[in-house]
């Protein structure tokens, strides 16, 4: 391991990434509830206010629409605000500002102004939380033109994709897989990153493609390992970006394997899986040996924590879908 590579959890990688962004560009601001002295409820902004001051790492009033609305104003003044929404289920007071203002203002001005605002949202379940702390609302944003949506699955991506999101001149919603915050991985702070919106093959295989993002990449990698013991070779594609989606990489994988299962925590109904299934069917109809299958949440409110293990797609539900796809 060379000295530019260090092992750290995703949470630390995000912290280091924010620190670097604040260091590199005086226009970068961090703002949100409890991001200052506390360092955020997940400590992602730990120590940043101490080092960069209250003017750049801003504890905001407890008002999500206000956070995004004032971030828009700061962006219009030339700043690059990186906002934090404390939990997925708390983003909705800001939904109007995000959808009607942030997403559309660049087009409204016929390109004459830019809105480089990042919205960090810890999302997904698996931490035994109370209601509104475990949701996956990404499809509700991906449906809106003007926004870009990304979600890293590992520490290196967490570090680099956040850098790239902050440098992007469009608004980016950065969904952080909260139950993976403490998963460690190698971060190479010197490696030149690829395209923010490019999907990657996280594990090559020949029999079937599993496409996932954020917290479900780990589940899919585990599923592929188990399947390998049974003599099945599964390819895992980490989508990384949900708007845009790198369909080329998914298509290339599917045309090698002939089968596709899309996995996400978000409800299947109207979810990313449906969009991917439709597009890949259109692109790769004659390569498909089976219909594209989806594994995800149900069309029911996210359940209380004691039921979330049943609700969240785990190893068995993924392998069940793999079996069904291979049975065609």
């Amino acid at each position, binding site marked *: 391991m060379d000295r530019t590579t260090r092992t750290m959890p995703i949470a630390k990688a995000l912290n280091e990434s924010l620190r670097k962004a604040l260091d590199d560009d005086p226009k970068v601001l961090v703002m949100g509830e409890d991001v200052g002295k506390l360092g955020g409820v997940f400590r992602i902004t730990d120590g940043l206010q101490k080092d960069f001051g209250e003017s750049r790492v801003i504890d905001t009033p407890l008002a999500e629409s206000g956070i995004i*609305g004032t971030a828009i104003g700061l962006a219009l003044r030339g700043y690059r605000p990186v906002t934090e929404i404390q939990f997925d289920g708390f983003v909705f007071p800001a939904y109007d500002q995000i959808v009607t203002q942030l997403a559309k203002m660049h087009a409204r*001005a016929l390109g004459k102004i830019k809105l480089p605002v990042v919205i960090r949202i810890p999302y997904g379940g698996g931490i035994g939380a109370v209601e509104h702390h475990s949701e996956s609302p990404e499809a509700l944003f991906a449906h809106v033109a003007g926004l870009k949506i990304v979600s890293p699955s590992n520490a290196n991506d967490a570090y680099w994709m956040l850098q790239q999101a902050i440098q992007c001149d469009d608004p980016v919603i950065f969904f952080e897989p909260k139950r993976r915050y403490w998963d460690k991985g190698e971060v190479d702070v010197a490696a030149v990153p690829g395209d923010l919106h490019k999907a990657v093959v996280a594990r090559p295989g020949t029999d079937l493609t599993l496409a996932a993002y954020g917290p479900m990449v780990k589940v899919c990698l585990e599923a592929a390992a188990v399947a390998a013991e049974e003599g099945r070779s599964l390819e895992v594609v980490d989508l990384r970006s949900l708007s845009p989606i790198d369909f080329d990489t998914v298509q290339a994988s599917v045309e090698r394997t002939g089968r596709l299962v899309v996995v996400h925590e978000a409800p299947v109904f109207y979810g990313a899986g449906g969009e991917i299934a439709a597009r890949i069917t259109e692109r790769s109809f004659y390569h498909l040996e089976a219909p594209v299958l989806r594994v995800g949440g149900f069309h029911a409110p996210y359940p209380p924590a004691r039921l979330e293990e049943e609700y969240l797609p785990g190893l068995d539900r993924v392998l069940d879908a793999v079996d069904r796809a291979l049975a065609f």
Partner: protein
Amino acid sequence: MSVKSTAVGGSPAKSRAASRGRSKNRSGDGPEFVQLLTPEGERVEHSEYAVDLTPQELRGLYRDMVLTRRFDGEAVTLQRQGELGLWASLLGQEAAQIGSGRATRHDDYVFPTYREHGVAWTRDVDPLNLLGMFRGVNNGGWDPNENNFHLYTIVIGSQTLHATGYAMGVAKDGADSAVLAYFGDGASSQGDVAEAFTFAAVYNAPVVFFCQNNQWAISEPTERQSRVPIYQRAAGYGFPGVRVDGNDVLAVLAVTRAALDHARSGQGPMLVEAFTYRMGAHTTTDDPTRYRSDEEREEWAGKDPIARLKAYLDREGLADEAFYAEVGAESDALAKRVREGVRGMPDPEPMAIFEHAYADGHALVDEERARFAEYQASFEDTTAGTGR
């Protein structure tokens, strides 16, 4: 803690001013307001707010209001003729808009609603720019930074947060500019306006919230929005609020100038409620006869902002027939330019749908653009092929 220090540091002088202003009520109904020119065109003094304008400046305000009204009337006509899809008339609110707009400095920044045609005029925004969205050729389209005049915002109250954020940035930059955020009596019920007040207060942002209370949010009267006069809400957030006669261009100018100076000098936000009246419909699709009386409108017609300034100019001998004729001619020329400009405004090309969806590009937009271009081109081929 911050709210407290804002209140202590910033508000006492203006709070006293506001309460003294109320004691000078001349409207005879409802809470008192700051007035420097009566509906009859009589100049009166106020203990806290004053203006000292040259005859030329006074004539300038008259000219601004007449041209703005003419532009507005022309736009209504163009809508009736089918040249515009919609128009939101400012008729009756000329003093509130010209007075406040003329109070801004070049480096100040304005965040309008969709009715601030008079304010746009004071910021040197080409009136034709305002008409694009109402004709349906764009959704705004002007460069906000050219005149420090943000795009029209249609969703009610959203812009007050943008203004507050912008003002937070001004303060971070150490600039002494101020930001002027427009909104209406209906918007005062929006959560975003409440959040804007909160953020502005706790960060002591240099923003002036300028509420044109034109008495009607489409069909709902102000009593449906608030149980207290709107300017009094500021007190709950820890900054001063003041009500001004919104049909008195001199009072609006004086109060807005003071409020902007207050913000500029680091004393934080201020709320100005311009008490005025929407003489026309909410927009050209609205029918005010369904919800308000002719008597009410007639009563407000007697407080007309232009008539009262003209009465003052005439009383003091500050303008002659040649001046009025000149303004009349200028007004005709503006109307002609607007008419011709709108009629000559081209429809955007179909491919404009995809332009500017993103600043840094987006693969799906690229794909859909290419497919749609191909689809469009297929018609050209068909036409050529049939030799039609």
